[in-house]
């Protein structure tokens, strides 16, 4: 079994209203030391099999076809150890 993770965030420069609200919430709770907050999505995928290289190509296709909105979002792919 293989597990992969796609992290999706708004591109730099694209406004993240959610991050802003979370940031001010943290401040209100006294967590002044937080300087910046960005909120994004994480998608965990499980595959029966496949080498990382092969899976990466497949996941990249999924991202460009469906998972990610390239106009406003960036993504990174990670592979996870089996747990």
């Amino acid at each position, binding site marked *: 079994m293989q597990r992969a993770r796609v992290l999706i965030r708004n*591109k730099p420069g694209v406004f993240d*209203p959610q991050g802003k609200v979370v940031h001010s919430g943290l401040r209100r709770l006294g967590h002044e030391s937080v300087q910046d907050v960005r909120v994004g999505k994480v998608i965990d995928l499980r595959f029966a099999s496949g080498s990382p290289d092969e899976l990466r190509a497949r996941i990249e296709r999924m991202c460009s076809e469906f998972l990610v909105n390239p106009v*406003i979002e960036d993504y990174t792919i990670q592979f996870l150890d089996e747990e």
Partner: protein
Amino acid sequence: MNNLDKRRFAASHGVSDEEYERVLEVLGREPSMTEIGVVSAMWSEHCSYKSSRVHLKKFPTTGPQVVQGPGENAGAVDIGGGLAAVFKMESHNHPSYIEPYQGAATGVGGILRDVFTMGARPIASLNSLRFGAIDHARTPYLFHGVVGGIAGYGNCVGVPTVGGEIYFDASYNGNILVNVFTVGVCKKDEIFLGVARGVGNPVFYVGAGTGRDGIHGATMASAQFSDQTEEKRPTVQVGDPFREKLLLEACLELMKTDVIVGIQDMGAAGLTSSSVEMADRGKLGIRIDADKIPVREENMSAYEMLLSESQERMLIVVERGKEDAIARIFDKWELEWAQIGEVIAEQRFEVYEKGELACDLPVSLLTSAAPQYDRPRKRPAYLDALKPAVIDAPDDLGQAFVELMASPNICSRASVYKQFDHMVGIGTVVRPGMGDAAVVRIPGTEQALAITVDCNSRFCYLDPREGAKLAVAECARNISCVGATPLGITDCLNFGDPTHPEVMWQFSEAVEGMSEACIAFDTPVVSGNVSLYNASFDKDIYPTPTVAMVGNFSRLLEGPGRAQGYCDASFKGEGDRVVLFGRTDTNDIGGSEYLWTRAAQLGQRPPRLDLELEKAVQRLVRDSIAQGLLLSAHDCADGGLGVTLAECCIGAEGHALGLNIEMDIDTIARADLFLFCESPSRIVVSVREADLSALVSQAEAAGVPSTVIGTVTALPRLVWPGVLDLPTGDLQHAHKHGLSRLDA
């Protein structure tokens, strides 16, 4: 940067060579880069209306009911009780094609601000959407994005989306239309204007911080889509409906104080257009210190700040000495604010950046001296190639009927409007799907408004003048069908590339047709919007002059169980009699949905409209509703009489009834054409049996042709002996699932 580079820089911003010469001439010097940015934005088609202005002058814009005509952020009409309805429609076509969710969402945000900037609390929104063919590869993505964006924004702000229209046609494959409308209400003598007055008065910036989003949005909306659009693409504007809601509440709270001199939202061309327009209206100038502008990104230049189209921002001129109110109210609502400048006597737009004058332009250069074009017009050749409709009667009329009900342009929109909060505000009396227009009670009163939006762009393609007239007529008919009186309109004129003479011909024809109809219905144009360059790869969209109309009821009486004095569309019960007002001409098949879905033809001409008959039919229906005579009223529009009857049987809540059609088939040559032609000026009503003869004689007295169609049955079947016998359920099923292929 040398002068040649500057010229190129200007050209890359859409400023033509002649236009650049004009800048040099007026200015008497070379502009700075910042100034080029400012000029290009203000002279863009979107901000300057340079190709359309000469035509828009033809619109009727006055009348006793007009409180505020075109030229302000929104128009306003008197609705009685000391109140005004403030409304406008806006397009967000280009941004929505690039990023449908955010494009549509920020469109809603923009139109809401246009209305509350006038001091009116928004009470309802509508939208008018055009997508490419339903089976076009990109349509599902664009459709779900746009619908999601409207829902995401409008629901959160808490303004109900109570209606709209959606059409699918290949003409929009490369350029969808997203038009959004909002109406608000305020006291008619408490309207706020976007004007800068009083030299020395401080200018405040309030709302969200400025980022780099949407720089050049206005210029982008002023060019066709092409392969290069990708590179010019600005950072997409992301809407924050939460902040919009705070801004709405904060502005309305500030308006209860006496500190505001003028207020305007920052829409297209952001800070630039809001300051310049306010200065222009006040015949004064504005000086801005760019370093004071609240920003949310680092190292922004004045150029970027001036052209940014970040959302949820407003500009307010405050009376000197009363600045404290801004801090008190905007701090309370957790919004950013800053005094960024002041009103100056010289009619100039001055912007300082790090102590230096980065922009110093005469206001008139950006407004009255902006170019205006009476672009060449030419009757398009395609009109002469149109052929009359040829369509055989179907072998199975019932089957054809069911198929028509499932057509994407006719089927139920419930899957869409269920995603819109259409009830927040507890004012929605006639909900989407229930009637021809939405009816919204005005909070704290017994008054109500009726609102609707319409345009059949196939009709406009066949004949822009007649098509535009038909759009106004259908709006007025929709308003009349719920029992309200039409008061005024706003419009969104969506057309192709204005450098195509054929497009300008369509434009000019449509404006004239609209004007004629608006005069006939006494519905002046009080606001509107022009969206040109709706073309991709040189193919223009169908001309789409979308009309949104507002009507009023003086009073909604609460009767036993429900309000009276208005009507919805559905049949009420067994034994009620069904009457058609108006005239059916089976030659009115051009542009119809039936002709298109069955024969893939457009035909030669749109249905013929007789404005006098139209007015008489509408007056009759309004009067009979006021008398409490009618149980339902529904006009014949897309899909003709057949679809109207089916919709009346289906009803909004699925209490399907049936209908026995009792007309003599021998007098009708082609049942299919009779049922599905789209002659205008027709309304189907139902009455109690006891009221039938009174109604028929009223019609006679009013000079309106009336036909008794038949009788409502509890048995859910549509029966026309010898012609048709269909379970209502079959029609209902087709109607309900027409859009489901978008979900596959």
